[in-house]
Every structure is written in C-alpha cells, then in structure tokens.
C-alpha cells in the first residue's frame, strides 16, 4: 500500500464513517524543489492529523501554497489555520468572491486556464462531475495527476483506507462508485449518461492522466481508469434510471 502516489505527490488519506461505510476526505501534498503545495485543506475534524503529516513530510517546513478545488467545508475547513500555522502560504482558489466563501487573500485561478504555482504548471478544468458552481478540477502537469473533486469518488471498507485502485483485489467496486455518486452528486438523477461520458472522454483525451486523485475516494491508477470510467457511467445510468419522477403526493 502506498501513499506516495508519484515522486512528488503524497496522498494524505483521511476518512470518515458514513452510514457504515468509509468515505475519504483526502488532501494531497506536492513537492517541487523543496516547496510544498497542498491540494485542498481537508476537514476541520482532521486538522491536527493533517498538520502532523504535513510537518512530517516537509521536515517541519510546512506549506508554501494551497489550491482549493472549491470552498466547501470538508475541502476548505483548514485554510485559515494552515495559513496561520505557516507564514506566507499562497492560496489559489477558483471562487470569485472569497469573502462570501469565508476565505481571504486568495489568488483566483480561472477555469479553463493554467497557472504556474511553486514553479509547477497546473491547469484548471471545467468539471463535468461536481456540484458547487466554482468547483475546478486541477491537473498537475508535473506528475500527470488529475484532482477530481467531488467526482470519481467511492466508498470503501475498513482496512481499505490506504488502498489505491491497484491494491483492491478486483479493483474499486462498481457498487461503491455507484453508491458514492448517487449520494454525493444528487443531480445525476437527471443525467444523460452519454453526454456525461462524452465530456469525461474529452478531458481524458486532452490530458495524459497517470493518476486520478479524488478527495472522496481511493486514488485511481492510470491503468485502472478505463474500468473505473465504465463503472462510473454505468452507475450514472443506474442513478438516472432509478429516479422515478415522483408523483406530487410523494414530493409533499
């Protein structure tokens, strides 16, 4: 089992029990020439654990930058504290109104554009699987890792918290992919699966992806992506098919 996904990318795996299953609330630490960048900041519940792991991985140096996928509490819950803990932590966020989102002094990244951060190029991608308006997927050109909050997640069992897709004997299960997306991206009940598949395929044809790094799932290795995406689209079809437009008396 590995938490070092690539030479530069370290997966900080945190998870929570949700109705019997486990759900990740991950963050990822990227190193570039002794500078350190965190993708998302995790939940306030995990603040001390994440802080300790960052201290350990950076030999006490701490963070130089944070990129937020979006400013939802499980993703942005530690931004202020981490910026207080380590001086001069640059915050990059896709939201246009940081004060409304409870964060301050953020550099805005534009979805559809790229930026160099700690000497490394990142692209910000319009996510076909997300719920909040200002969510961005983040592509790290240095390690070919695609960060896909809140899509590409799955639930996992006890003992699988530090698995990547390579460690599951039969891969990440289709059922866990379906259940996660059913519960987390509620709008999928209206989805046209073909349209979603086309949008996902466009992204993966444009970017070489060695790892997909979800916030709410186990990381997916490049060789496992085809199977995962097939399960994801099947899951989306199932979510949509199961949503019976309910009768008025059932919606009261």
């Amino acid at each position, binding site marked *: 089992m590995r938490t070092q996904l690539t030479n530069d990318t370290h997966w900080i795996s945190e998870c*929570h029990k*949700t*109705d019997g299953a486990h*759900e990740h*609330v991950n963050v990822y630490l990227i190193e570039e020439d002794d500078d350190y960048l965190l993708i998302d900041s995790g*939940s306030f*519940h995990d603040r001390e654990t994440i802080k300790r792991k960052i201290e350990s991985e950076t030999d006490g140096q701490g963070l130089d930058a944070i990129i937020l996928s*979006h*400013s*939802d*509490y*499980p993703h942005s*819950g530690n931004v202020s504290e981490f910026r207080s803990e380590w001086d001069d932590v640059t915050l990059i966020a*896709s*939201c*246009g*109104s940081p*004060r*409304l*989102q*409870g964060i301050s002094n953020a550099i805005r990244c534009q*979805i559809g554009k790229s930026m160099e951060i700690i000497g490394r190029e990142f692209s910000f991608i*319009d996510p*076909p699987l*997300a*719920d*909040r*308006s*200002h969510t961005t997927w983040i592509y790290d050109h240095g390690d070919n890792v695609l960060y896909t909050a809140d899509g590409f997640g799955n639930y996992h069992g006890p003992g699988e918290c530090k698995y990547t897709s390579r460690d599951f004997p039969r891969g990440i299960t289709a059922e866990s992919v379906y259940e996660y997306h059913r*519960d*987390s*991206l*509620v*709008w999928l009940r*209206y*989805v*046209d699966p073909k*349209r*979603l598949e086309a*949008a996902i395929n466009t992204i993966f044809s444009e970017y070489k992806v060695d790892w997909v790094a979800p916030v709410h799932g186990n990381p997916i290795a490049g060789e496992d992506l085809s199977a995962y995406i097939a399960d994801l689209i099947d899951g989306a079809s199932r979510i*949509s098919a199961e*949503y019976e*437009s*309910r009768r*008025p008396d059932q*919606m*009261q």
Partner: protein
Amino acid sequence: MPREILDGFYWIKENGPDRTGMIETEPDSPTWYKEGETVRIPNCAYLLVGDKTLLFDTLSPASGDEILERLNSVLGDRDLNYLVVSHPDVPHAGNTPRILEAYPNATLVAPKYGNGHHLYRLDEGELVGDGDSIDLGGFVVDFHEATFLDAPVSLWMSERTTNTLFPVDWLGFPHLDSECLSLFEEVDTPMTVDRLIEFHGRVMFWYAYVDVPKVKADIDRLIEIHDPDVIAPAHGLVITEDTDVYMDRMKRVVERIHAEGRIGTLG
C-alpha cells in the same frame, strides 16, 4: 434594514460584490440592464415572526455583523426559536455559529438528506425533510427535499399561511442596485430567459449534462404541487405575482444551458 414583505415575514438581504462584469462581455446590453447600474446577485435570508420565530439561512460570513444587527432590529428582546439552514454552503450557512452564539436557545434545523453532516457540524441539529413541519403560531413551515440543488445536504421550505416557496438556489437571478429589496413586481426590468441564465448557467451548470424532458417534468410537478403565491429565492428578488410563469420559464433556461453549455462560475 430588513423589509417586511408580509405581516411578520421579513426579507434580509446581502447584496454581495459588484457583478456587472458578468454582462460586460456580451455584445448587446441585456434588456434587463440599465446603463450605469451595478449588477448584484444577492444572498437572502428570511425571518418569520409568529408566536415563535424562525430564520431561514444566515447570509455569508462577509455579513456576519449585519445579520446579527438586522435580527436584533426585528426581534428586539424576543428570542430566535429556530435557525433553519437550507444547506451548508458558506453563503447560506456561514454565520450559523455566530447566530447560535447570539441566540443560544435557538434550535438548529438542518436537512436530513445527504450524509456526512458532522463535516458541517449539522449533526447537532434537528434533521428534517419531507413530511416535517413547524408550527410557529401564525406561520406553518413545511420542509421538502430540494429538487434542483448543489449540495447533497439540502432542503427547500414552504410556508402555508402566505403560500410561499423557498427554493433556495433555484430561481435566482441578478438585479440592479436600484432594485435592492424591491419585490420583482415593483421593478420595471423584465425577467427574461437570459436573466435567469446569468444565474443558472453558472450555478446549475449541470443542466448541461441532463436529460431535458426529465427536468421539465419535474418543473411541471413543482408547479402542480406548490403553486406558490410568493417565491422567496436565496439569490434573487422576491416574486409575488405570476410565479407559475417564472417557474415554467425555467424550462427554456434548462434547454438553453443544455444546448449552449455553462456560461461561467459564481461564488
């Protein structure tokens, strides 16, 4: 100051930042825009004052002092009995701790839908959904699973006495500075499909990936079920006339976003 739009029914509003930039890239000025005006997409909270009192949503942390001042200006010595959080997005729920600190007797009411409530500290609240209601004495609110939403932990609300629907992130739209706290019927700018797209083409970007007839069927169902006299959105002006017309107009909004894709982001 809050506006009392009906007896005991107060509208509390945060204008948010200047959004004029969202229309400056368009080749023609929108028909709903007046030259020189500033465009806003507000955050709204609603306060119901009956025998008991209830606040629906909290505004963003940028207006933490303001929401407390406005609550105090209406409630005075009265207590806040219920704080209902529609969903845990920061512009809706960001002042929950401050309000509960100021009104420690208030019951936190939160959506029962979705999971991971502890990640938002909503697990300490009373979780409600379809079939649940609160009688405030003078007002009765009913809770509903949100139909069109972003966060999975989401809730819509309606109020029986005034026949108001609170559709949260649905039916939002930009307004002009001069229209602040005006009912939509009091302004002279039109509710065009383009105007609705300025909001939904950013917030409900996922309409780009949907089966349009399925969404339209649910819009019809919402009109049939609720048939509201008042629509009190979280991100637009309060509507008190022709509500079914505007709900129905959302079908064209969905068609357009589906055909043309999202137009940007908001937040």
